[in-house]
């Protein structure tokens, strides 16, 4: 399986061909279909990450030392970005996730989505992903 760094490179290469913003967004829209969706029953307040302007639901499952994420969002572009994130971070060990530096977002020109203005919950989502990793890591160590 490709490393986090490799997957990020892959994504950057995918996006680098698009000069036009609309093409990049179109690609994100396509990618949004790849998002491993969270179980519909979990789309409730417990799993929500609230941005001011769009909602994200996130779940994490721990199996064989690795975390698998599923998610959803009511906004399609947000969904596309999450799909990328999960492609990078899902099926990894807690430590891999904790140490990951997510530079691809910046490199494909989506840094704005991480600014506090962009109230799409992405920043909180990354935080939440890392928190899951830290939590599972702690649990493992206790055992």
């Amino acid at each position, binding site marked *: 399986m490709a490393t986090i760094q490799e997957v990020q490179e892959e994504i950057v290469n995918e996006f680098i061909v698009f000069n036009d913003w609309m093409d990049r967004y179109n690609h994100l829209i396509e990618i949004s279909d790849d998002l491993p969706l969270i179980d519909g029953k979990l789309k409730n307040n417990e799993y929500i990450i609230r941005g001011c302007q769009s909602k994200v639901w996130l779940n994490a499952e721990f199996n064989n030392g690795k975390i698998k994420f599923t998610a959803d969002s009511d906004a399609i572009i947000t969904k596309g970005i999450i799909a990328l994130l999960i492609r990078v971070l899902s099926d990894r060990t807690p430590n891999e996730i904790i140490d990951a530096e997510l530079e691809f977002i910046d490199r494909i020109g989506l840094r704005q989505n991480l600014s506090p203005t962009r*109230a799409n919950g992405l920043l909180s989502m990354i935080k939440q992903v890392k928190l899951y990793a830290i939590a599972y890591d702690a649990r493992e160590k206790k055992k």
Partner: protein
Amino acid sequence: MDHTEKYDIEKIRADFPVLEQKVYNNKPLIYLDNGATTQKPLRVIRVVNRYHSELNSSIHRGVHFLSDQATNAYEKARETVRNFINAEKKEEIIFTSGTTGSINMLAFSFGEQFLEEGDEIIISEMEHHANIVPWQMLCERKKTKLKVIPFDDNGVLDLEVYENRITDKTKLISVTHISNTLGTVNPVREMIRIAHKNGIPVMIDAAQSIQHTEIDVQELDCDFLVFSGHKVYGPTGIGVFYGKEKWLELLPPYQGGGDMVDIVTFEKTTYNELPFKFEAGTTNYIGAIGMAAALEYISEIGMKKIAAYESDLLEYALQKLDHSGGITIYGLAPEKASILSFLIDGIHMLDAGMIFDKMGVAVRIGSHCAQPVMQHFNIDGTLRASVSFYNTKQEIDYLCKAIQQVKTMFT
């Protein structure tokens, strides 16, 4: 169209340097977020620059050249504001930090002086949070009650319910002149008449009307009126609190500090006269001077002309959007100004907003600090385009092109 004759839009646009901005891949900026804040004309930019470079000095307290100059300009700014809203007296104009600061000031001072447990305050369902939360906080503190005038699905307030809400416990009515979300122009004159019939004072939130319509506080007969400098082409951090002198005399000061006092001893402190009683500390005098420059600038163009041009533009936009199809407009009151809230059917506002942005179109998305309006329609928010007298029909056309683009991409 005839009332826009001789309206030299090119000349006006040339006064606003930011309108020449290019964003992203050299896209011209289409600024349709005027409801949030307005752009600054050269006159304002230059006067702020000049006071920073040549004439900055603390006001009121100095006996030297610079201080004289700054004080005179500040007091002249007060007179400009007085004249702009036709207040009777200069002393009725208080400079504050903005609309929010003004409303909080009234909530505190009015609350301290006049409210007792069980008393009631009336606001409307379409208020900005700035005209909701200060009253909620006050109500919690003073154990008073907040009552709400509902609006119908077009965004029109129900005046019958309004009259019925008034009881002998009602002590103050605080309503917005123009809704920042629905664009509704409320019949504030009639609402004030009804309130006064019952002996109740009225505060008007003019944050969204001061820049779009002619306002005459004496004709309206409102007791208080508030607005922000930054929404009327002036600087940030400055606002106005207008109050009839008879009320201002009765209200206790809000903040304590320099300039608002007469004699200070640890035993007893007495307060300065109006308007200084309400202006504690070093005020934003450069902001006030900048705001006055903005008011003079739009006065010279003429508020009637501005209102007519903007109304034409809004009408044009409404029609174009209607023709586009697949769009839901929130706020269809017969009396409507500047603000156009909408959603593209089946498409999330954030998806639309992000495409708009990359096309250079600046609109606002979200609840616009008016969550109860969203709750009314059971939505999370809207896309809001808000026009100003420097916007053009071509810009509206471009907005429609952006909508078309969004539809293509997401369906």
